[in-house]
């Protein structure tokens, strides 16, 4: 099962290596990982999509909490989320097939960002299902190249407290306590 976890981290060297190293060392499975700046120049946000059951996810969250430069860990499981992945995809398409592709692009509210005699490059954003559906539709034409940013996510309502739904055993990770 895929879950989305987000971590606010201190903007310092080696934090990403710590996160990646911990995932590898503890045999956790990462589906995607996106890192970027936040409104606070001292903090970055890492958004991770993790594959695993409840127990695994609980360990992931707790082990992330133990990494010192990680300031807060948010578990978005069960949240009403806005999730976005951005993809650039280069589709092999001869000029006579362009209208066909254009129709698909319009349906997905995607955007042509480059075009050549034998290809179009398209920018698509959206939740994962949308991106996957777009790729599936492009496959018959031939996908020449593809790159994705990895999922980022934000809850619709601001109720996603850090480590939401804390059971007592998660007290130790609860922020803003001391």
């Amino acid at each position, binding site marked *: 099962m895929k879950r989305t976890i987000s971590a606010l981290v201190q903007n310092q060297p080696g934090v990403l290596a710590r996160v990646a190293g911990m995932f590898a060392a503890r045999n956790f499975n990462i589906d995607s990982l996106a890192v970027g700046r936040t409104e606070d120049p001292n903090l970055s946000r890492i958004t991770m999509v993790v594959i695993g059951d409840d127990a695994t996810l609980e360990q992931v969250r707790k082990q992330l909490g133990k990494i010192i*430069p990680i300031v807060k860990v948010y578990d978005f499981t069960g949240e009403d989320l806005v999730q976005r992945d951005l993809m650039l995809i280069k589709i092999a398409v001869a000029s006579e097939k362009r209208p066909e592709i254009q129709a698909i692009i319009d349906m997905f509210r995607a955007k042509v960002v480059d075009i050549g005699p034998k290809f179009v490059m398209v920018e698509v954003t959206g939740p994962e299902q949308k991106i996957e559906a777009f790729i599936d539709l492009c496959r018959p034409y031939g996908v020449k190249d593809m790159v994705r940013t990895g999922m980022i996510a934000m809850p619709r309502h601001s109720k996603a407290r850090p480590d939401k739904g804390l059971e*007592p055993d998660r007290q130790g990770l609860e922020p803003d306590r001391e």
Partner: protein
Amino acid sequence: MGNTADSASLNSKNQSTSFSKKLGAQIFCDVLQEEGVETMFGYPGGVVLPVFDALFDSPINFVLSRHEQGATHMADAYARVTGKVGVVLVTSGPGACNTVTGLATANMDSIPLVVITGQVKTPLIGNDAFQEADTTGITRPITKHNSIVKDVNHLARTLHEAFHIARTGRPGPVVVDLPLDVATSQAQVSNSGSEIDLPGYRVRYEGHIRQIKRAAEAINASEKPLIYAGGGVILANASEQLRQLVQKANVPVTTTLLGLGCFDENDPKSLQMLGMHGTAYANFAVQECDLLVAVGARFDDRITGDVKRFAPHARVVHIDIDPASISKNVKVDIPVVGDAKSILGEMVKYVEPRERKEWFARIDQTKRLYPLTYNNDTDAIKPQYVIEEVCRQTQGKAIVCTGVGQHQMWTAQFYRFSLPRHFISSGGLGTMGFGFPAAIGAQIARPDATVVDFDGDSSFSMTLNELPTAVENGLPVKVCILNNGYMGMVRQWQEMFYGKRYSKSFLKNPDFARVAEAFGAVGLTATKKDEVPKIVEQMLSEKKCCVVDFHVEREENVWPMVATGKGLHEMAGLPTGTSERV
């Protein structure tokens, strides 16, 4: 070794008295003193020479090891014995790499260490410079935290943070990588610069009162409770609180290897150690109890055996300062996150006395049926006998260190521990060679105490290069080599699981007594059983480092044993019959 030219600028001493500016190396010494460091361990080298130069005038006692691994084990044992942070200073590259085993050992056993490693000058980092290694990269997965200081103005703060992180919460080793040019440049000194800034590090010491009450109620309601106490009780200095809880609630106690001494093993409520080589009565109690109260322990695979069949009838209470330990291996019903001392102290108020006649009768029965025992009716020296004899002559009050293997398990079984911080052993990582440098660190921490290292011939061979360290510092460490000429535990497994094919597990040993003599220590050899009491007496009366080579029964095994994959109740080698009798 490498570049020393930069240290020339250190010689003008007036810098340290300047109000506005201070040299990195001097900041280092000052922070250590502010942190109350009295003793540190290590080994010099090229890029840390400026720091060593500053230490030349420092009142801090510096113990020079013969290998950086030894230094980390010494600091580790120093920390285990005193409860203070162990401090190590080594050079870059090979020096830093040699601390890896010691760091991993301390990390697995949650021991507070601050290890400062030299690093090449910042402009050279990443250039494959002489004696350069990516120390923070190498040590990241085996430390609680690590960092590299690239600006001398952050040095004081980073060092204070290292001490804070090492000693608080679940303790652990912290590495600070210190490039040469940071040690030799001048910082603007202001008080605000050294305040720690760790927004991502919060430690919760007090347990949630509702959880504490739930745990106490579970104990009160239990017919067959059992406390399973680990190294966390010792780290939290919670032995007294544990004793009070046990006495008031009337609950039996078993401890892990690292928990030995957190509860008096001579107390009738003690079941001694549980697990793979634990006592039969402890393991049966785990499998039969209806409530298991884990305190400062982490359900390691050497404790649980087959985890699916572990404590099958028990609800589980888990008291631990590390939330990540909870429900990691075993599903926990009542977790209490926090410091064992504060939680147990609070819990005592809510537990009620209960007789539990049947439960204790059952425990007495298993104690009678399956005592820890061995056949001493032989001419050869039994390793267990040596341990019992040393225990008798030291009244069970010595600080006991061990290497890793059979001798370690026999020590855990046959030395009766009654005091916390008196059993020093590598539990989680199982580091052979830990015992002797650990004994040195322990003796430095407690010059007055009798420190005994029960060691294997193979374990001792790994770190006997620290003999001159013991001699040079006049440390009366007693080393009892239980010499069977094998890697005993490896041989036992090969006997049991590999058809006695003793592949590469025996070794041609030197005459350890003569080795000891060559290093300036006292060397003794015991080959006959009847000379053991006398030679132990002589060993204990020696005023300098004394190595006794006990030639013990060669193919003695450690019993009982829960083989990998077996349930805790499925022990091999029980004294009478098998577990079917129960």
